[in-house]
């Protein structure tokens, strides 16, 4: 959906916008710097009945809520062994299994169920489905997420994420939904497991003892191989050579290329440095290193905008040839300064590289966004 949303701008306005954004530095309609995010308001814990929930409100009035519910589910055994014998073996080999979490605790992408709801669109709308696919792809891309849901060899948590846009889709909602999901997952807690090994799971009935899905705070969590935070998906676009983050609806309408870039905090640090990091943690906060998880190109709406007609070809201005062969004209017309022409072709490799670089760089946008979300009280 939404990326191809109808934008009520005339070709002349489009051309003007495009020109403004192509300047160095670009001039954005709302006066933001190219890498500046729109202000947002966030809170967590708005749905007391869920395992974790969050709500984010962008300054343009778009608003989303995400609720996370977890259920215990029996793991299907691939080799067809019965649960009984499986348990017996698990009991004896318990000690090993616990340490060696890499091999044993394999997750499965089925363990996450994600639904996206955009008001005014059916849930099987292509755009909605694509949004959902992108969000779950980002979640599962690091391969470590599903592993967090592992309880023992016979059971796992099944996580249901309900992602709701509660305002009309004023701009492409991907970054909003991604950030809200991120925040909800950060706030998600699972009841504390009390049983051991491969027994039927048995949990502490004290909610205060429930542990976070993404444990926060202490430095020790950084030493684990998994990322300490869920991924975020950012929307980035390029106009000419300029890279613009978090585009507004109007900006997206003139984008040459639009990308959804998913990044996670990279904690796949070599184990040798883990020890030193531990020491560092005490003194200075560890530098965040980001890891690229996925890139998806998004069809920018600019491709479907009607082109402007140069005065030279406009019959109102006395041109006559145009009427005879309109196709040829559109196809072959030279770019005319100040006349809107829908972008064609793919992104330039150099721009792509710069774009990814910009996302991942230290102190870059992703960093800034994560820092901002860090400040949200997870209550």
């Amino acid at each position, binding site marked *: 959906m939404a990326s191809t949303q109808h934008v009520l701008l005339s070709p002349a306005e489009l051309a003007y916008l495009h020109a403004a954004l192509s300047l160095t530095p670009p001039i954005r309609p709302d006066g933001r710097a190219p890498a500046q995010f729109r202000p947002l308001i966030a809170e967590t814990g708005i749905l007391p009945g869920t395992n974790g929930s969050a709500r984010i409100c962008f300054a343009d009035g778009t608003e989303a809520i995400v609720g996370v519910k977890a259920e*215990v589910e029996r793991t299907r055994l691939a080799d067809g062994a019965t649960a009984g014998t499986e348990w017996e073996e698990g009991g004896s080999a318990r000690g090993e299994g616990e340490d060696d979490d890499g091999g044993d605790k394999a997750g499965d992408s089925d363990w996450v169920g994600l639904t996206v709801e955009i008001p005014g669109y059916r849930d099987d709308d292509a755009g909605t489905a694509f949004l959902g696919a992108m969000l779950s792809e980002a979640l599962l891309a690091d391969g470590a997420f599903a592993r967090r849901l592992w309880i023992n060899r016979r059971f796992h948590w099944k996580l249901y994420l309900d992602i709701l846009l509660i305002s009309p889709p004023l701009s492409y909602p991907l970054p909003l939904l991604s950030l809200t999901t991120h925040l909800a997952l950060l706030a998600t807690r699972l009841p504390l497991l009390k049983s051991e090994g491969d027994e039927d799971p048995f949990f502490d009935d004290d909610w205060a003892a429930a542990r976070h899905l993404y444990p926060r705070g202490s430095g020790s969590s950084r030493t684990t191989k998994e990322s300490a935070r869920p991924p975020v998906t950012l929307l980035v676009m390029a106009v000419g050579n300029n890279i613009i983050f978090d585009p507004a609806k109007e900006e997206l309408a003139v984008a040459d290329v639009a990308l959804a870039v998913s990044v996670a905090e990279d904690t796949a640090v070599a184990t040798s440095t883990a020890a030193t990091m531990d020491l560092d943690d005490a003194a200075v906060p560890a530098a965040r290193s980001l890891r690229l998880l996925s890139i998806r190109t998004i069809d920018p709406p600019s491709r479907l905008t009607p082109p402007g007609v140069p005065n030279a070809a406009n019959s109102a201005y006395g041109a006559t040839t145009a009427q005879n062969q309109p196709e040829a004209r559109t196809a072959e017309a030279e770019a005319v300064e100040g006349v809107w022409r829908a972008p064609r072709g793919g992104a330039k490799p150099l721009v792509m590289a710069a774009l990814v670089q910009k996302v991942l760089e230290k102190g870059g946008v992703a960093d800034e966004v994560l820092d901002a979300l860090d400040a949200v009280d997870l209550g």
Partner: protein
Amino acid sequence: MASLKRSFDRGPFAANISSKVYVRSTKSGKVQKIVREVYLRQDIPCSSRLCHVCLNTVPKDAAGQAIPFVLSDAPAGTSVFPQGHYLVPDTNALLSAMDLFEQSSAFYDVIILQIVLEELRNRSLPLYNRLIGLTKSEDKRFYVFFNEFRLETHVARLDGESVNDRNDRAVRKAVAWYAQHLARTKARKVPAVVMLSNDRDNLRKARDEGLHACSLTEYVKQLKDGDRLLDLIPETEDRDTAKGKRPGEQNLYPEYFTMSKMMTGIKSGLLHQGIFNVSPYNYLEGSIRVPAFPKALLVLGRENINRAVDGDLVVVEVLPKDQWKEPSSQVIEEEAVTKNENPDAEGNEDFVSEKERKALQEDVKRTQSKTTEGHAQPTAKVVGVVKRNWRQYVGHIDQSSVSQSGQQGRKQDSVFVIPMDKKIPKIRLRTRQVAELLGKRILVTIDAWDRGSRHPSGHFVRSLGELETKAAETEALLLEYDVQYRPFPKTVLDCLPKEGHDWKVPASIEDAGWKDREDLRDLLICSIDPIGCQDIDDALHSRPLPNGNIEVGVHIADVSHFVKPNNAMDNEASIRGTTVYLVDKRIDMLPMLLGTDLCSLKPYVERYAFSVLWEMTPDADIVGARFTKSVIKSREAFSYEQAQLRVDDGSQQDDLTGSIRILLALSRKLRQKRMDAGALSLSSPEVKVQMESETSDPIDVKTKEHLDTMSLVEEFMLLANTSVAAKIYDAFPQTAILRRHAAPPKTNFDELSNQLKVKKGLELSVESSKALADSLDACVDNSDPFFNTLVRIMATRCMMSAEYFCSGTQAYPEFRHYGLASEIYTHFTSPIRRYADLVAHRQLAAAIDYEAVHPSVRSGGRLEAVCKNINVRHRNAQLAGRASIAYYVGQALRGKATEEDGFVMKIFSNGFVVLVPRFGIESLIRLRDLADTEPQATYDAESYTLKTTGSREVTVELFQKVRVRVTDQKDETTGKRGVKMELV
């Protein structure tokens, strides 16, 4: 952007809302986060009679009556709180010393906080129920204060605070609030509010906050009879402090599995769950019936039994095949084997004592010497206890476990208590009153059984009195069989008709009581019962009809007219379940007024009845049956003997006698029909104790005589029950209350039929009840008329017990009553003494449209609960009755020695059981009783023969008739006066 979060700190009513979050795990394995909103209020009263403020806001019931306040305005004081005090116990205080709170000498005016009540319910349901009982009793003045809902006492959990700490804080806050609240009443003497806790931290914090707080021990010491009460405080408290000092303590028993591990195992079929039963002959052998196997699993040895006590719901694991064993053929009694153990020296001895080991060795030898591998039974070990079924046990202190120093002085001493029930292990008890308690029947409870302790530890509850006094022994019996013998509470008595004994059937037929009742006052009805029967349930009549058929009527006391569903009396009756008959005492299910007067179908007065009327052909074929509520007037109340005399006396030619004769003739035909259908005639040794009329001391024992008039009554009662069963099942296919007797599994008879085959060459066929009845009839030994009865007695013990059930829970073929060979059966004829009959009355009344169906008669779940309870009660009542007879038989024989004929019923390798029909008793004769030095013996399990050599040479076979000398003997270790038999 305005926050969407529910704000707890804003708005005018913000203070009144709180919430509670927890994780709920359901049975199906779901794990849910639950959020409950809590609305706080200020109109929850403190319920102190001193308080006038709360009176204004006290909630009113539906009738607009304010609920009366509970706590006294002049509560009792103690040495420390002379101004009077209210108690606020915390959960642990109640958990560990509920017996204290049930004392009648102290512990009045107690505030039970809601948080404490809830915690208690989660920890122990039986204790919770006892506490609820206390809060309902008017004279104890226990008040449940809903502290969680009162604004001032609600406590929100702090960050990082554990649930326990939070609950402790809630208790302290409530105590503080009460103290403040009461101070404001400006009463002359403001009672102190005292928190009771065994948690040191909690006590310290309370004192820091300036509250009154005591540990249980401190508090009890302030009371007048404190020393006595101190024993009621379980020893775990002392142990907590002492634990650190005993680093060398070893764990003797294997650790239990975690609950989740057990549940996983049960679900996957690797572990099994069931009720643990201990063999009455061998305390080291238990069995457990699990749904997965047709036969029970054996649990042998202390280690495998692993602290399970008879009646516990346990989880077991089957042992490998090389550890399978035969059930022991030896008698092992705990008192004998573990005699002279020192209760103080805990853990120093070997875990399985030398003697115990020896006893087991014998078993192994025997199993291995034989080639009968097929006889080995699967064994199992206990890996965990799902639910303890500990109750209060009656016992006495083992004299030999008392140290010399314990006999004097009041220092705390460890002794063993030997429970009356042989299946219960001895209990270690710490008490300060050894000297007083020696030689008394005492009531104790088990508190705990640690891994490090050989025996369970418990505490003293109360003394019932001297051993062998009638009062103590009777009470002991009632307690052991869980018979409710307290007098009926006032709420129950309030349900009785106001007229009391002056109640009469209304004279006017227009009266509401006569509605839909038939007037049967002109029928010649009489009742036939045992001598001295006061609660007459049933009466009969017969009269010829003009068409040559006979009308027969069975009239049952209309109890349901007086006991309305769901009132206090009905609830009490449903809990009691049945009237319990002891030799010298009757514990009624219904108050005396009803049982022996208003309901009882006494002669010469008009009574309400529920009548079943049949039209029968002279051949006792039933033409039709009809049910109606009626008014009758019994002409005479006969005893069996009187009725028999009258029937036999040819000179009696009046109508009444004639009608009894007709009934007698019909009953013989009915009986024959029943026998033809395969009804069993079973037997159990029944005797009657004759009492001296003045002192009610037993003087003689007689076996019961059987009279024709007994079977007359029995036949018609069976007929009435069967007819009613069919009728109520027809009206309520899902919820009819019925009685079934399941066919016994064939394997039950394996042992007996093998014994008969080997010893007497007789065949027992058990395919159907008919076949069994026939083959039992064939079991005759011409030289010995009693042999047939003996076999019947033994066969009866192989049967399942009959049970009440709700028709929706079983398929129709399962309704069968095996013993009576009846397709469907219920109990209808004794509503005065059985609750099931009362329910059947209500259902029948609804079935004939006499009254509307009451919800309690229709709800399957409720009826199932009722059935479950009355099945247990019924069984307990039987056991209590038998135990009472056994006790009196012992008393009757006191100081006498008689020689009697006996029959060998069961043989062990070191003893045998003899039944003496004359007294209806059976007793074990051990080899060591045969001679001064125990003779050597060889036991041949194949031919059931025990041959002794050495100091005395005898050969004992199964079914053998032996001559025994019966004397009474007080067993010094068990304190029971029992019968002692010696082979002559």
